[in-house]
């Protein structure tokens, strides 16, 4: 199973109100939401860092730099906010599964080089941003209780949407 379908599965579980039998049906709490959002950003930072090590394509590198810079900025803000609110981000099944799927994807991309790597990286960025956008607008934002956390997630959604559009344009250019 590839990363996209795994990620969609993990996030769809959230979007559908968490229907896995072993899980509670409760919506994620703010500390869990904060952890999921932070993890989602961190994953994209690491993917960007990998691309900066491997890609020689100027446009792909510029995109990867943008991912690293923007997601780091939003995560720094998230850390400052949870500190201010006295909230401790709480690891949970969704963020754990996001991390393990991301690791699998990084390993898979590590085996590719040149144009094949560029295409696979950008294709994954399109799919990943799409998935996270769905989770943000479908679950994480509506379920967030704290207004500042909700607002920051809203900013994150606008960022992810712009990144998705950028990735889609790049994917077209690369002939994916």
């Amino acid at each position, binding site marked *: 199973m590839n990363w996209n379908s795994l990620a969609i599965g993990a996030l769809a579980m959230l979007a559908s109100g968490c229907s896995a039998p072993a899980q509670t049906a409760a919506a994620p709490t703010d500390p869990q939401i904060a952890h999921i959002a932070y993890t989602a950003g961190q994953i994209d930072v690491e993917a960007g860092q990998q691309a900066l090590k491997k890609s020689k394509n100027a446009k792909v590198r*510029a995109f990867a730099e*943008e991912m690293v*810079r*923007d997601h780091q*900025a*939003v995560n720094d*803000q998230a850390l400052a906010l949870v500190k201010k609110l006295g909230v401790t981000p709480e690891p949970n099944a969704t963020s754990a599964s996001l991390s393990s799927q991301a690791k699998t994807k990084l390993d898979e991309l590590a085996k590719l080089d040149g144009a094949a790597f560029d295409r696979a990286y950008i294709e994954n960025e399109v799919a990943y941003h799409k998935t996270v956008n769905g989770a943000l607008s479908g679950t994480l934002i509506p379920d967030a209780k704290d207004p500042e956390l909700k607002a920051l997630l*809203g*900013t994150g959604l*606008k*960022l992810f*949407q*712009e990144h998705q*559009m*950028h990735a889609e*344009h790049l994917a077209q250019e690369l002939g994916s």
Partner: protein
Amino acid sequence: MSRGRPAFLAALLIAAALAARPAAADPTVHVIRIADMRFGPAPAGVRVGDAIEWVNADLFEHTATARDRSFDLDLKPGATARIVVRSAGEIAYYCRFHPGMTGRIVVRQ
């Protein structure tokens, strides 16, 4: 005669300063605020000689880059940068980092 000279010179300097004032006056500054991955609305009534100032109130680094590359301003979060408009017409610009962010400004003579 020599006594009156400094006063005369001073008067001349003041007159020169006054005459130069309209030209040296600060240009009208039109501010475009960047927030939430968007450029704020285009200012109305921009004329040649006015300044356009971008204020980055977003969490993210952006640029204000002319399509014709006549300017390319780098705007770190919290940064402000401006251009002075030198000719009439339409300015199309975008953010190099986030190509989905675009804006247009109409400049009149």
